């Protein structure tokens, strides 16, 4: 526990609070303009390709603890979940791989130059107001160059302060508890400093023992008699995590700005794979993530808008294997990132915009890992984009230029080591989006896009001791998508609104970076650009709002995804190639879908959600030994809103995996059976 009360941490907390108080002191005598209540979002006609969004009430209605849990409800998304509150959860859009997914937190990308994976299980939903998912890129040309740089993008928007009339302060307390010995208090403090400036502070602590029962049962295929049925408790899955966040939000004439600081500190056990005769593991992991970022946006001249973004991030990770029967490991990894971005949009004509963005990013990684070199990466990104609105037809096109230069410092390598840095890279990648709205009145449009983008090999891919390969090329994706969207508002009907969106797509992943066997020693892998994957898929999502009775409102949302994601990686041996050729790639189901339904009656809300993941294989060799059964979970919660004096309060009871299905998302990582959560919330 002393981890959370060390000096560094106290300093951070005190600074955040002092910063808030100091600003408050000089706040009183300023102009009386109201702080804008809603953050400006792109107007709907600008969205050449509609995004999938979960926000506000809808997001709250899900029994989701982390961002990863919520993202499962989007079409075209696959989550790898290693189980439990502390378990790794990564997201994959349209089967292209986790590394092709950009995750943006309040406008600026979360980076992980080391392994390219963002663990979305680490981001609690506590203060997230909106999650949006874009295939290709956001249909917005006025954005930093990095926003053009991923095959798919998730934007997380934290709650920004807003105040009811005559209120200068908002306080919100929240407490969650339940299965796995979860203790999760949080505090939100929003303070109006001047009429156009507000401060916010948000803190959350998470503890969970991570203990849950899991069960493995096998039956005989012909007799259907149980051959074994064993239940055990998952050990070493505990987590302690503290998150602190503070921000300053301001508006000015024709513009806005914000500064925010994020700090996350955690210690967790790594429960590991459940295998024969291993009952307990003792590996631990510590993470400390810090970033501070600033954003400023203004219309400088009537036709010219500018935004400036900057970020500094410092991430520390320690992995310890104290088990003396195995290889003793105590490795630390330190990453730093500096990011600067300038974006400009110029309105050439009323219906024709052009933009130019330039970003500069510096990344470094150091470690005490034996034989590790310390890489430095400087990336310059330049994006040129244009948007044209011809009424019925809208178009957007962009070209992103990426220029990467890497250097290494001889880290922990022997002097004789032949360490070298990866050669410079230059890539130009285009994207083109078009939408057509054939009818004047009906809200119906068809859209299409093509995007070519790549992901850089990560520092681990390039430099990890004995595994890394500096000759790696970037891994490319090509996406072709055609779809439509239709929205209908209905009067005088139970159905208030009805919306459907469907897309068909073809993706190729070329130069896919895969681990190939190397020699015959302990470090048996080498990263190579050998893979090739083709994905043919279809995403459908639909939602409806109903009002069956005066006081009863119902919302229903359904998604369905079909994906054929085939491995066409060549092999010199026809026999080996035949085993995986055309096989569905690991953990991608052919069918998956979700359903959400919520019913609101006066102050009472009942929410129900369902996730279905169809049959999959855990390897491209689609043989019975690698087969994984479908899994599906039903979750439900009931929420009661009430008032204590004039303050809002809320009590909510959640039940997850109602039918207590024993399932695994990842082979040998069992998921929890039925579990519960109680949430109390109080707002001043």
């Amino acid at each position: 526990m002393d981890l959370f009360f060390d000096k560094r941490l106290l300093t951070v907390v005190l600074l955040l609070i002092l910063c808030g108080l100091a600003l408050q002191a000089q706040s009183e005598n300023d102009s009386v303009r109201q702080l804008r209540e809603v953050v400006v979002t792109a107007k709907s006609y600008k969205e050449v390709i509609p995004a999938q969004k979960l926000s506000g009430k809808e997001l709250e209605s899900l029994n989701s603890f982390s961002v990863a849990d919520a993202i499962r409800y989007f079409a075209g998304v696959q989550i790898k979940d290693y189980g439990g509150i502390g378990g790794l959860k990564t997201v994959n859009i349209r089967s292209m791989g986790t590394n092709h997914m950009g995750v943006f937190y309040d406008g600026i990308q979360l980076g992980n130059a080391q392994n390219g994976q963002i663990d979305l299980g680490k981001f609690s939903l506590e203060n997230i107001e909106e999650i949006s998912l874009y295939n290709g890129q956001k249909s917005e040309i006025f954005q930093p160059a990095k926003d053009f740089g991923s095959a798919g993008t998730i934007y997380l928007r934290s709650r920004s302060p807003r105040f009811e009339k005559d209120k200068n302060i908002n306080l919100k307390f929240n407490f969650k508890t339940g299965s796995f010995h979860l203790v999760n208090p949080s505090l939100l403090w929003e303070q109006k400093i001047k009429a156009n400036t507000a401060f916010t502070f948000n803190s959350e602590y998470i503890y969970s023992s991570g203990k849950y029962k899991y069960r493995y049962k096998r039956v005989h295929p012909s007799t259907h008699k149980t051959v074994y049925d064993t239940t055990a408790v998952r050990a070493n899955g505990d987590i302690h995590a503290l998150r602190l966040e503070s921000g300053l939000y301001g508006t000015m004439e024709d513009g806005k700005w914000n500064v925010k600081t994020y700090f996350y500190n955690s210690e967790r056990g790594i429960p590991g794979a459940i295998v024969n005769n291993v009952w307990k593991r003792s590996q631990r992991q510590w993470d400390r993530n810090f970033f501070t970022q600033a954003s400023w946006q203004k219309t400088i001249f009537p036709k010219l808008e500018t935004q400036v973004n900057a970020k500094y991030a410092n991430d520390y990770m320690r992995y310890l294997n104290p088990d003396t029967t195995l290889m003793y490991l105590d490795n630390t990894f330190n990453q730093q990132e500096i990011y600067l971005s300038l974006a400009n949009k110029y309105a050439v004509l009323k219906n024709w915009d052009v933009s130019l963005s330039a970003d500069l990013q510096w990344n470094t990684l150091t470690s005490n890992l034996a034989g590790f070199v310390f890489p430095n990466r400087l990336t310059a990104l330049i994006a040129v984009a244009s948007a044209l609105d011809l009424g019925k037809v809208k178009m957007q096109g962009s070209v992103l230029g990426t220029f990467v230069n890497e250097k290494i410092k001889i880290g922990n390598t022997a002097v004789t080591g032949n360490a070298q840095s990866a050669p410079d890279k230059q890539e130009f990648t285009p994207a083109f989006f078009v939408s057509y709205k054939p009818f004047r009145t009906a809200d119906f449009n068809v859209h299409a896009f093509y995007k070519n983008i790549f992901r850089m090999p990560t520092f681990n891919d390039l430099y990890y001791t004995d595994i890394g390969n500096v000759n790696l090329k970037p891994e490319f994706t090509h996406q072709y998508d055609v779809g439509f969207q239709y929205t209908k508002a209905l009067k005088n009907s139970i159905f208030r609104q009805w919306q459907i969106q469907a897309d068909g797509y073809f993706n190729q992943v070329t130069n896919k970076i895969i681990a190939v066997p190397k020699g015959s020693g302990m470090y048996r892998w080498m990263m190579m650009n050998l893979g090739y994957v083709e994905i043919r898929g279809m995403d459908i999502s639909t939602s409806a709002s109903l009002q069956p009775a005066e006081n009863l409102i119902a919302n229903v949302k359904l998604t369905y995804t079909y994906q054929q994601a085939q491995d066409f990686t060549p092999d010199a041996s026809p026999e080996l190639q035949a085993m995986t050729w055309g096989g569905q790639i690991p953990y991608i189901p052919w069918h998956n879908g979700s359903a959400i339904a919520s019913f609101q009656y006066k102050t009472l809300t009942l929410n129900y959600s369902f996730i279905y993941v169809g049959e999959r294989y855990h390897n491209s060799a689609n043989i019975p030994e690698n087969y994984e059964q479908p899994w599906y979970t039903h979750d439900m919660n009931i929420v009661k809103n009430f008032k204590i004096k004039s303050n809002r309060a809320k009590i909510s009871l959640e039940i997850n995996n109602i039918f207590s299905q024993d399932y695994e998302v990842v082979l040998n990582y069992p998921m929890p059976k039925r579990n519960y959560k109680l949430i109390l919330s109080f707002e001043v």
Partner: protein
Amino acid sequence: MMFPKKIRFYFFTTIIVAVSVIGCRGDVEMHLSETIELGYPREVTDAVGFYLLNEGNMGSNKSTLDYMDFSTGNYKRNIYAEVNPMVPKELGDVGNDLQIYGNKLYAVINCSNKIEVMEARTAKRIGQIDIPNCRYIRFLGKYAYVTSYAGPVEVNPNYTQKGFVAKIDTATLQEVDRCIVGFQPDELAIVNGKIYVTNSGGYMGAGNLKNYERTVSVIDLNTFKEEKRIDVDYNLHRIRADQRGNLWVGSRGDYKGHPSRLYFIDRKQQRVTDTIPTGVSNMYLSGDSLYVYSVEWSHITNTNEITYAIVNTLTRKIESRNFISDGTDKLIKIPYGILVEPKTKDIYVTDAGNYVSPGLLYCFDKDGKKKWSVRTGDIPAHFALLPIEKQDTIPTDTVQTNKIIYKN
């Protein structure tokens, strides 16, 4: 309203089609074995078949056991679960060695920290011996000797994680003694009243060649104490005793500049007296022929360089640079396991492929021409020949069925 109706129709049709295609979760079924007819049935005189242990990638818990029956020419894939359906989580995680001694079959399952003991004829489970991070097993008399990477458990800031050799009573399956050797000991050979253990230092050497071990530990069988060390080369792995009691040791190298090599330890001098210019990933001794192959990563071509050789243990010369003669060697991605049948001299080589998908087992005749190949489990690796059952002798644990007599 015409349009939405149409869309709704298609939408719901899609949903209905989808729901009918997609399935529900039932009970998870255990995997039954599969039998593949390869042809080549024959009369058996010395060995009736062999077991092949597939390692399975770490964390996959997919170590499996296959069986080749010579008399029928049938290959049975994944037999353990079928024979032992009641064992939770089956054979385990990462098989590392397989041996038959007496009437028992021993499978060393590295990441499951156990040696699975089965009946040699049926693969029916008898019990298990718990040894953390166990690596290889050999036998003499009524004892089994197992190497382990697991260091002694102690609280010590300057903790050094030396490995050990465990002595196990094959009748009771209990560990009776332990002898600390070097860092991360791998294969062992029992000859001349000694146990020779190759120390690798595999956990220490990453990034620095000098941190690898470079010795063979010599343990006296009577005292079960480490007697001395024989200096060989960095990162040792394989060891075989030839018919005259000399030792052949393979080093792994450091996977970078320092290559893998084959060394000869003279029995009398107890030191390295010869180096054979070939790398060693694995080897199999058949008579006086040592079949060797090597897979080494080249940082120049960024490919695995694979070599095959037969070394004559009498002349200590490379007799042949290729025991696969029909070009099939070009198709083998990662040769991983090897067996040479004593009578027919048929050569069996496995291909571990990409380590995560199933591998292949190839059978070549004595001239290196391919007879057949078959899909195996993941990372096919370790062979154990099953000798013919003799009517007149009852194999017991005290009888040494595979003892080699060394003449002085």
